[in-house]
């Protein structure tokens, strides 16, 4: 009984661990590109988390079969899947913007490592003291 | 003219005063003239307010309603009126003195100092006349802010630090202790008005009363309760007319008056609930008073010595407010007046000596009384009066405070009060004696031509007042509605 509960919870635990890893990379990595990869990991984990919560064992995808207009077998909850889709769209927008900003940073600083960028900022400040 | 209008004019006069002094800043004659005229007009208005109040005219002015349950309003009651009138009268005496002092010292910005003195006194008087705790807090904080530039008047890094101590201690206490006390009071009573019989009477239990009373006593830090007294020595960087009248008399006494008002009109009957805080605060005030006198003895600079003496002497008002019997409260109110007159006179002498001889140390005063007899006669009278030595005015404070304590079954307090008075006599009495009877110095005056009548007249009048106040006790007790005697 207890082991069944643990088994049922295992996918969620794995997904949360993956999201946590993503959060660590997104906030901690000195490489700006890796930060964006961390963000992508969080979004993927979130989409999986949502979709997993709506899955029925042995059920179909919630897509109407062509021509018939009714489901023949049980199907997974479509609500979560539509949430996950909406979420991925907004996530994609953010990731694309982040990549574009990284391109601009590289043009301005010639670097995409945050410590090199901080170094350049400090040099600027030393040149123009406040 | 209605009493309300008179009160409004009284409250607004200091603003006009400051503006008039500012407008005439570059013409010394006009500036000092305006300063003196406005100060005397202000004092006359205060006397008129008292007169009308005696004839039964209840004045009330409401200017705004910043809180749904509290107006920004003023309503004179006898104790506040007495203190305000005393401040205004002393300010009138201080005005010519300030004129003479700043001229003799060739001050850089006398107009600014005079305007700020007027504003500080005006805000203190407004605090005295406030109708509720909120208005009191507002005027009290404004007074602190207005008197701060006086501390920083001479400029420079050391003096800036003193100014930071002044503002830091007083504002921190008022925001961190007084404001929560007020908010908590509001939580109990849902309003903040000063009410005869006490706003909190019957509304709070012993623990709340203890905590609240402690918050009030330390929050009103200008009363100089001992760990929060450091602002006053710091304020002695101000020029003498400001350090004496504004900081040692007006600011300090406003804190004491606040405590009296809190005790009488906020706590009222609830004072008896504070069974721990009351005796503890009395011991702290009077024990601190003795300690402050010892510190004063160790100071050779005259102004810091007078500052510590002030801490020691205003503690009697705090003790009176905590004893909280009608007679003790009367004694505390009377002491505000008597101490104010005496301390202002002491500073008048100290300022005149500084201006004429350049001497600022107690040890340098020896024998100076033989060269400046009037000034030092006044100094001696005032010193004895503020130390509660009979037969001068201050003796009444000692007497009635002890009587009040006895009626509250706190006879031990009388012993502490006596100890405090003896200690404070030790700080000032021998000083006056040495000055009067020591060997006369040969050539004391560095600026003999500066001895104008402006500088000397207030000194003499102040000394005479210390003596004359002795006869004010009966009318004052009638005005305050206290039956003295057995």
């Amino acid at each position, binding site marked *: 009984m207890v082991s069944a509960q643990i088994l049922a919870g295992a996918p969620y635990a794995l997904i949360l661990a993956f999201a946590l890893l993503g959060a660590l990379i997104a906030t901690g990595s000195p490489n700006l590109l890796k930060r964006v990869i961390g*963000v992508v990991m969080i979004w993927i984990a979130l989409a999986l988390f949502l979709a997993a919560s709506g899955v029925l064992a042995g059920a179909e995808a919630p897509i109407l079969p062509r021509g018939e207009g009714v489901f023949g077998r049980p199907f997974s909850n479509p609500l979560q899947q539509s949430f996950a889709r909406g979420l991925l769209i907004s996530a994609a927008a*953010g990731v694309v913007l982040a990549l574009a*900003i990284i391109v*601009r940073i590289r043009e301005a*600083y010639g670097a995409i490592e945050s410590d090199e960028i901080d170094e350049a900022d400090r040099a600027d400040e030393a040149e123009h003291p406040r | 003219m209605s009493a309300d209008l008179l009160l409004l004019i009284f409250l607004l006069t200091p603003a006009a005063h400051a503006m008039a002094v500012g407008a005439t800043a570059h013409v010394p004659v006009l500036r000092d003239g305006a300063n003196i005229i406005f100060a005397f007009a202000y004092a006359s208005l205060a006397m008129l307010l008292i007169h009308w109040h005696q004839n039964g005219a209840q004045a009330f002015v409401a200017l705004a309603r910043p809180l749904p349950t509290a107006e920004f309003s003023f309503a004179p009651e006898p104790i506040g009126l007495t203190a305000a009138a005393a401040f205004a009268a002393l300010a009138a005496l201080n005005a010519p003195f300030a004129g003479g002092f700043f001229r003799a010292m060739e001050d850089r910005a006398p107009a600014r100092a005079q305007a700020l003195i007027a504003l500080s006194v005006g805000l203190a008087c407004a605090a005295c006349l406030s109708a509720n705790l909120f208005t009191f807090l507002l005027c009290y904080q404004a007074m602190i802010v207005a008197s701060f530039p006086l501390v920083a008047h001479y400029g420079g890094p050391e003096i800036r630090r003193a100014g930071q101590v002044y503002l830091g201690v007083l504002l921190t206490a008022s925001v961190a202790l007084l404001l*929560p006390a007020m908010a908590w009071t509001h939580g109990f009573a849902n309003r903040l008005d000063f009410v005869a019989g006490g706003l909190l009477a019957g509304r709070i239990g012993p623990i709340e009363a203890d905590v609240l009373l402690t918050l009030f006593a330390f929050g009103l830090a200008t009363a100089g309760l001992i760990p929060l007294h450091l602002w006053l020595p710091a304020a002695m960087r101000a020029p003498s007319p400001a350090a004496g009248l504004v900081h040692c008399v007006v600011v300090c006494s406003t804190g004491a008056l606040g405590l009296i008002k809190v005790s009488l009109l906020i706590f009222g009957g609830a004072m008896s609930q504070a069974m721990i805080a009351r005796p503890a605060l009395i011991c702290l005030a009077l024990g601190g008073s003795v300690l402050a006198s010892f510190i004063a003895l160790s100071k050779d600079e005259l102004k810091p010595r007078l500052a510590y003496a002030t801490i020691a002497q205003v503690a009697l008002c705090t003790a009176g407010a905590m004893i909280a019997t009608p007679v003790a409260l009367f004694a505390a109110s009377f002491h505000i007046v008597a101490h104010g007159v005496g301390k202002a006179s002491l500073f008048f002498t100290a300022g005149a000596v500084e201006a004429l001889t350049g001497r600022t140390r107690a040890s340098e005063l020896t024998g100076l009384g033989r060269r400046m007899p009037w000034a030092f006669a006044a100094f001696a009278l005032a010193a004895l009066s503020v130390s509660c030595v009979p037969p001068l005015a201050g003796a009444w404070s000692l007497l009635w405070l002890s009587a009040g304590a006895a009626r509250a079954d706190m006879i031990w307090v009388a012993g502490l009060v006596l100890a405090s008075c003896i200690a404070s006599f030790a700080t000032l009495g021998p000083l006056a004696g040495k000055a009067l009877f020591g060997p006369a110095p040969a050539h004391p005056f560095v600026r003999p031509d500066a001895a104008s009548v402006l500088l000397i007249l207030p000194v003499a009048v102040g000394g005479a007042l210390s003596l004359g106040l002795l006869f004010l006790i009966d009318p004052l007790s009638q005005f305050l509605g206290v039956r003295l005697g057995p």
Partner: protein
Amino acid sequence: MSEALFDFVRAHAPVLVVLAPLIAMALASFAPSGRGAWAALVASAAALAGTAILAALTYDGRQSYPLGGWAAPLGIELRIDGLSVYGLVLIGVMGLLGSIGGLGLLRAETDRARQPLAAAAAAAVLTGAAGLLVAGDLFVMFGFLQWIWIALGALTAIGVDHDRRAGPAALNVVVAGAVASALFAFGAAIVFMATGAVDLDQASAVLSAAEDSRAAAAGLAMMIAGLAMAALLAPLHGWAVGAFSRGPAWSAAALGAVLPVAGAIAVGRIVALAASALAPGLQHGVSVGLSLLGAFGAIAASLQALAARDVRRLAVYIAAAQAGCVAVGFAAASAGGVAGALFQLSNLAASALLLFCAAAALTRADSAGAPLVVLDGLGRRAPFLSLAVSVALLTVIGAPMTAGFLSRWSLLQATFEARLWWGAAAIILSSLIAIVYAGRVFERMYLRAPAPDMARPRSAWFAPGLLIAASLIIFFGFDGEAPLRAAEGAAGSLNWGGR
């Protein structure tokens, strides 16, 4: 005619407040010149403010607006209730006053080609903020939250041409924003799994009936943590420091007062959900957690303000310190506490507008930012501007006779009532620290002589905003009845009774 217009606006208010800036965003991005795009932004902010004020004046209970006629469980519903109408009026007015000031700086600081895009991005942020306030379900809230970060990231990135440090700041907004909105979405997903509902009302109803609401409590806590970033709660306010002190100066003026309001109101909404639906013990846990976060934020941000060397950073830290006080009020989770929090929020908005506008006006053209030295002698160089800064600082301190006193006062009352002693201590301590940093600014403005090479502050376009915000602060300090009633009404429109 005008009556028909009023009725139309009134009936469609929940969608109009989102549509107005959305349309402005489209118009601005195709506008031929920066001036035209800026006009679209200002017009949309005016429309937002007007609609919100109309909705506030005619408010008579909650108004639902099913998009496309699809009602709540299946379709998307936008809603206006007391809380959102309060926030909408604030962001409308602050967005309008702030963006009016932006024109001069937009033209001075931004390339001609990018001016329309910049105005469009600002309109997009406004859209997201309005949407966050009217969203009726958790996933729409998430959508608008993520929208805000993307738009603000784009807007900040436009500053790279002027100051290259805007680039990393913009990336920080996007990345940290993504983490925050993902945290919110995880929380929402957990609530959805626990209740089967994303609609706020439905979730509340299901939770009230549920026996075990522990999972949902965890979800709600995660959502609050995600929103706390938008609400500028320290230590989650790092994004704002970069975006508002290194991005285009005018964007901070236009949006610095808008975002904390939207975030805080959203926090309030989730706190209300927790208060009405969770078991008392769990609800208390959420409250204590939020109050600790708020208390920490108020003190930490105040200390940072003490150390700030740049006027724009100082403005961010001051806003964050007040946001901490707002959170403490929300944590009291009573009508009185929330009213105090909302009043403090309007105070935050007004003072943030003043400080961000003043900072923008003082920002040097040579990309050196606005070091504190630009304040030296401001009292003589620009008396009006320095007066506005003084009013803002006084209200931040909570000095009597400013609106700040009344808001601190009502917050203190509420924390006493809720026995959140540490919250009360944090509010008082932040006031005390404010005295110190405000004192330093006063000293610079009024006692120091200006440095020789000081440029004139570019404050002409900011004048209306500065004038209106400063006079409101003073006026409400003398008579606080009206805003206090409004805040109480807004707080009272939600259910704080618990189950």
